[in-house]
């Protein structure tokens, strides 16, 4: 009973804290972005006035025209003269779109126009999202050994205690991932994409690898992009490998916090709760620790359903 009460208390506390966090974010975003928006709106106003003054176009017909242009633009169809004649739905772009669908990134730079396309997207996503998570899990499980277990054992053998060894390893892994999957791609993007700065590239990498996918920056959509299909496939590969590394980081962090007792303190599902028979890889190779884990696990295990919402693994605590 005590643990049930505690879990409800924790949940309420989490919700309250979450609301506060959202409010805080809203305030900051509002204060940063709003003045810029106001300025842009004033500029637009002036532009429209100027256009209307020097021409015979009436306001109504201009409105009409603009609305149609914007509707087309929403679907990625540009009306400008120098827009490339490449379609948004050739094979490479469609594959890119399918990839954003199943990895749940969902940029939205191109979206299905037809009703059939929308219906197909629903079915495709419902099957493809768990499928992708399955693949990611399998791949991560494979690379977990050389990237995590072996280095930690190595660190232990060179004299470190288990807990600091895991922390040191995690920090090293974090630095490596940030370097290879955020900073380097950001530099590459800022060179390949004409209008992106380094910060834009970094912002894009982060927003994509967290599967947020706002869609304000999408590589390969500039008109006149050379080798567009190859570029899009390369970006797809980068996204997949990057997602895998993020998941690896998350899993390592989860196992590490298991070891340090954080997850049982917060009554969260332990990383090893999900490993039923086949996957018993303690991050440190000590038999006494695994015995401890087993007893702790039976104590803290309280629920199976939805205790590991891993369809979006970045969300997983």
């Amino acid at each position, binding site marked *: 009973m005590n643990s049930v009460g505690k*879990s409800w208390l924790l*949940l309420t506390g989490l919700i309250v*804290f979450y609301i506060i*966090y*959202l409010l805080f*974010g*809203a*305030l900051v975003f509002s204060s940063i*972005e709003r003045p*810029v928006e*106001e300025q842009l709106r004033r500029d637009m*106003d002036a*532009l429209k006035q100027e256009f209307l003054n020097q021409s*015979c176009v009436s306001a109504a*017909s201009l409105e009409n*025209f*603009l609305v*149609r*242009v*914007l509707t087309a633009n929403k*679907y990625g169809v*540009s*009306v*400008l003269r120098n827009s490339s004649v490449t379609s*948004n739905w050739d094979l490479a772009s469609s*594959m890119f779109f*399918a990839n954003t*669908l*199943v990895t749940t990134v969902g940029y*939205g730079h191109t979206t299905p*126009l*037809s009703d059939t396309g929308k219906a*197909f997207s629903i079915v*495709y996503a419902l099957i*493809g*999202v*768990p*499928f992708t998570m399955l*693949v990611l*899990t399998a791949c991560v499980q494979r690379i977990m050994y050389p990237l995590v277990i072996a280095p930690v054992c190595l660190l232990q053998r060179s004299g470190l205690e288990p807990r600091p060894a895991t922390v040191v390893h995690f920090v090293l892994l974090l630095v490596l991932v940030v370097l290879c999957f955020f900073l380097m791609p950001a530099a590459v993007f800022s060179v390949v994409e004409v209008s992106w700065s380094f*910060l834009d590239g970094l*912002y894009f990498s982060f*927003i994509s690898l967290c599967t*947020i996918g*706002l*869609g304000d920056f999408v590589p390969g959509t500039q008109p006149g992009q050379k080798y567009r299909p190859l570029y899009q496939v390369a970006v797809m590969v980068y996204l997949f490998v990057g997602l895998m590394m993020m998941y690896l980081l998350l899993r390592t962090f989860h196992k590490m916090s298991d070891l340090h007792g954080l997850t049982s303190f917060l009554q*969260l*599902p332990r990383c090893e709760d*999900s490993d*039923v028979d*086949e*996957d018993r890889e303690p991050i440190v190779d000590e038999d006494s620790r695994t015995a401890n884990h087993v007893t702790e696990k039976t104590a803290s295990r309280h629920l*199976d*359903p*939805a205790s*590991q*919402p891993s369809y*979006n693994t970045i*969300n997983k*605590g």
Partner: protein
Amino acid sequence: MAAPDLLDPKSATHNTKPRLSFSTKPITLTPREESEVVATVMKWKTVTAIFLLVVLYLVMGAAVFRSLEQPHESAQRLAILSQKLEFLSRHSCVNQSQLEELVKQVVSAIRSGVNPAGTLTNHSSLWDLSSAFFFAGTVITTIGFGNTSPHTEGGRIFCIVYALLGIPLFGFLLAGVGDQLGTIFGKGIAKVEKMFVHWDISQTKIRVISTLLFVLFGCLLFVALPAAIFKHIEGWSALESLYFVVITLTTIGFGDFVAGGSEIEYLDYYKPVVWFWILVGLAYFAAILSMIGDWLRVISKRTKEEVGEIRAHAAEWTANVSAEFKETRRRVSVEIYDKFQRAASIKRKLSSELGFSPAPELTLPRRTVSVNFNDERDKIERDAGLQGLTTPLTRNSGLYMNGLDPERGDISIIEHLK
């Protein structure tokens, strides 16, 4: 479709609640010290196979999307080009470069979130508190609609930092909500099971039915009902509402449809209710997608097992049959040989007593038998049994004298003795 692992009697007794979670356990094995080499080989094969499957899935999806969407896109393009030409022809004082310039500016303004179409005076800001709150929510849940996005450098940097802290926070929250949802569901299942225990239905059937009920009820509550509400309030079609619900709850979040993003007058509590629905719906969808993932994994494991089992069974059966056959042949041949030896010794004794020479008589029937036997040999190999030999051999009644019984099929082994 039933959850395969629910039908496994072992897990049914082991777990008190139906397994709806997706265990992060993969299809592949873990490397253990002893069997590491074997497990490594299997893992690579499995992972490569799965990876190829995903690539295939993507290519298939791409082909279907292309065939569905490209015609629409071309039609849209043609329409807008004709619009432009019509506009230019109707308003002859506007030249093309001016128009292009205006359009470019308008498009970039749209990208920054400002919609120049419509009267700009009573336009609500995209960054007032409630909309910013909604945006922060889309960032943290990783849905990321994108209809609003930060455009200042400061805004972007803050977005990164904000997401870094907020996404794990939301992860904890989701785990907690999912937990509670699961507990409520589990209690309901226990009650239902208590009711049904009198009706004497098997436990696994109850679990299957209850899972289906959970899925249906959740679909009704978190998918169908909100879709109907969105259809009514936002004015979308039924398919578009369903599309929005699925795209949002799987956190894909394209942003072509956003609840609360149009120019309609919304009620005050509309956006917070939408946000709350997203939270609970995400937990529900997480459970559903985990379940689908579990099923895929178990199905693939089952298929692998079944295929392996079938192969093992076939090999076993073949080995058994051939071993049995060899054993029988060996045994019978030994018996025949013994009998023959005894018969020969008796005959020798008799002939020595009567003064006959024994040898030629013995060989003749044997040769005849073997000639007849050759036809039957294939039949024996097929049937792995020793019947069907009686008729052609009874002619050689001389065999009875030698103590060989054709009915018993002893004849089949005679050719071994040659």
